[in-house]
């Protein structure tokens, strides 16, 4: 087993090796070849992680050719230019006018998605300290569409929605901003406020009344935001999801800071990730683990988003390095 797992880290060579062995066996004896094929299929079916990896790898190589944001942008620009050139020929415009229509700067960033994608993994960095600290952390972060920036609850309560506007203005255009408002009541009003401040997602407590969560999800849809349900202190997340009229976009499995510091034994219920993903088509985020090791085990258990904050509480020389380390785990 360890050999196979090691091989899989090196996905392309593992696949090539498997195909190679298959052909050799087929040459020797067709029965051996078919048996080998069956064993491989069984292994992949039984080992979910491998199959996910394989799917990601095969899917990514094919889709990346077509679907890269840069490529889309290039195609769109080409189309635009073609149209304009045609128009230009008709109307005898100056060529300079054409380029006025092409957005300046990095095009790939301008069309970054404002909604999360199900197949991707994300690093979710929560900012919980002062605005000065937040600013210097943001400046050090590497640019990546895998990084989500969260405006933490203490920040929102301290500075109001201005905190969201400020942080949005400091980040690169198109960065995904999460407002951790932890809504417990009056959902429609809070979602409206967060949407107006420019957040891409808002959070609601899983322990809140069901009516509030239903209102919250509906309201998020209205503003084209992602709805995130924070399952802190919820014993049975599946039971909560079952009661809802509509599913949220993201479910956050969360161990609170106070819980972690006072009671050392409490664990994040990682086994719930598969339970939830098996039953509902939602994105699952895990919050409350901060070491690389905890992040690894969350990802291994199928989490799509890992939320970290403690290491990013204060900006230091290592902030960029740290973010890169986490990003490496995610890819």
């Amino acid at each position: 087993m360890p050999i196979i797992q090691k091989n899989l880290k090196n996905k392309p060579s593992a696949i090539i090796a498997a195909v190679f062995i298959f052909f050799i066996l087929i040459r020797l004896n067709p029965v051996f070849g078919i048996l080998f094929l069956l064993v491989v299929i069984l292994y992949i079916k039984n080992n979910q992680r491998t199959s996910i990896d394989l799917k990601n790898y095969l899917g990514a190589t094919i889709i990346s050719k077509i679907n890269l944001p840069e490529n889309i942008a290039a195609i769109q620009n080409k189309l635009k230019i073609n149209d304009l050139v045609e128009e230009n020929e008709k109307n005898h415009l100056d060529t300079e006018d054409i380029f006025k229509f092409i957005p300046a700067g990095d095009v790939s960033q301008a069309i970054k998605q404002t909604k999360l994608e199900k197949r991707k993994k994300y690093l979710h960095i929560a900012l919980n300290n002062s605005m000065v600290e937040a600013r210097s952390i943001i400046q050090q972060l590497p640019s990546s569409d895998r990084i989500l920036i969260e405006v933490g609850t203490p920040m929102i309560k301290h500075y109001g929605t201005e905190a969201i506007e400020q942080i949005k203005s400091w980040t690169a255009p198109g960065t995904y901003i999460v407002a951790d408002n932890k809504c417990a009541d009056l959902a429609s009003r809070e979602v409206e406020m967060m949407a107006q401040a420019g957040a891409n997602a808002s959070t609601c407590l899983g322990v809140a009344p069901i009516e509030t969560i239903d209102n919250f999800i509906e309201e998020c849809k209205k503003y084209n935001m992602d709805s995130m349900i924070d399952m802190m202190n919820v014993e049975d997340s599946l039971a909560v999801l079952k009661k809802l009229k509509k599913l949220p976009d993201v479910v956050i499995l969360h161990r609170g800071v106070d819980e972690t510091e006072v009671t050392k034994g409490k664990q994040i219920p990682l086994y719930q990730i598969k339970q939830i993903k098996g039953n509902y088509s939602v994105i699952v985020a895990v919050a409350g683990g901060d070491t690389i090791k905890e992040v690894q085990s969350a990802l291994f258990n199928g989490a799509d988003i890992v939320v970290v904050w403690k290491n990013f509480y204060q900006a230091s020389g290592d902030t960029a390095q740290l973010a890169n380390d986490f990003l490496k785990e995610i890819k």
Partner: protein
Amino acid sequence: MLNKRYKYLQIAFNRSFEEVRSMINQLPTSDRIIIEAGTPFIKRYGMDGISSIKSWWGQKNAGNTYIVADLKVMDRGATEVSLVAQAGASAATCLGLAPTETIDEFIKNCEKAGIDSMLDMMNVKFPFEVLQKLKNIPNIVVLHRGADENVNNREKILPLDQIRRIKGAYNNIIISVAGGETTREVMRTFFNDSNIAVVWRSFYENPQNATRLAEDFLKLTR
């Protein structure tokens, strides 16, 4: 600090800065009125909102100001409590649904900061059980039916029978009831021995009638 033998009217403000200012100016002066900075208000304006409310009400009510910051703490009790204490609040709220560790931290830090701790029992089925798990008892327990619950589900009722039960078991506790909006409901909560009645919707919907509404409710606190 609050007197256990009095009845209080707590008015929660959730509108915009300017509207809240004019509503507070319309209120009659009284030592029975508690002003609450609502959760959406805090999330919108932050600590500035709380200190502004404090100074508006202070000018109006001759320094006799009891301001509640409806923080609805769910995690990290310590940080948020010290923030609102600095902003001038006299009490802060924590969710009864939060982890027990958080509530304990919250109560401890409220004592340290010298403000009253309020435990909001919204969506808690058995408030009594939550209280039993705590190391220390909060100053005030809020029995609460959420606003969204109120609108979407008329069957849910306020657990008024819990008031006497909690008061019987814990001597020094003050009970506040939130979620009743008509004078009738407020009268009922006082009749059932609560100390504080929290109202907000009638003020939210008719900001121009704040004076008359407050006077009507205040009659009941006598």
